[in-house]
């Protein structure tokens, strides 16, 4: 008769994994919104300067490239935070089953 209740194990793992993923999303969305807003304002400013003839085409392209690079950096952070969330979810899932699995197997596997 196996000591490990697979159904209970999976329920606990899913429940433990859910929380870190939700937490990271709420942190990420607020940060992204605020940074993208600043970049949007900067792009608007570039457009205005261009319209009043105070910025050459070459300058406008360089300014825009800088804003695009900043946006890329923000998206990379969001990607990284997502990876951290997945990592936290996996580790949370493993943590809740650690005692059960180690006790059943009679050696510290996890």
């Amino acid at each position, binding site marked *: 008769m196996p000591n490990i209740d697979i159904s209970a*194990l999976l329920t606990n793992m899913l429940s433990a994994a859910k929380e870190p993923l939700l937490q990271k999303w709420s942190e990420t969305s607020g940060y992204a919104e605020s940074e993208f807003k600043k*970049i949007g*304002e900067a792009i608007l400013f570039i457009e205005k300067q261009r319209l009043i003839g105070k*910025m050459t085409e070459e300058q406008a392209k360089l300014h825009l490239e*800088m804003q695009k690079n*900043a946006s890329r950096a923000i998206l990379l952070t969001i990607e*990284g935070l997502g*990876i*951290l969330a997945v990592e936290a979810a996996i580790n949370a899932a493993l943590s809740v089953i650690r005692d059960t699995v180690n006790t059943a197997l009679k050696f510290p596997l996890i």
Partner: protein
Amino acid sequence: MKNKEHRLKFVSFRILCIISLLYVLSIIGCANIRLIADYDEQIDTSITSFQRKVEAFLTYLERNAVKDEAKYENNTKFYDEAMVDLSAIRVRAAANPKNEITIKQIDLLYENISNLEKLHKLGIPAEQIFPIRTAINSTCTAILKLEIAKKRGRS
């Protein structure tokens, strides 16, 4: 009968999932999984210091835009130092495994300093410093945000 067969398949799948998980754990033999590099205090402090240096330079350009001393020719030293700083930060980041995202972000910051240099050669009026500041600050914030999250994610 069909229902029983379906349930049997479902239970078998769950058992397979658990066995796979235990197998992976036995191979890696560790308590916690690492999918991204650990927090590096040196990256944190270097980027903070770099942002301060660029901010001081942009403020200087803003205040002295019409003067000769703010012309590109008189400020090439800033760009040389900034490129060396970023190169050193990149080398440090590359020494940590699973740090590709931070390396890409440092490359983007490098590109933005290079774009700032090109703009400076063309001439930057004081009022056009604003979007440059936003782009560089947002890039530095993005790097720091991820670096700090690496620490908090494992505390």
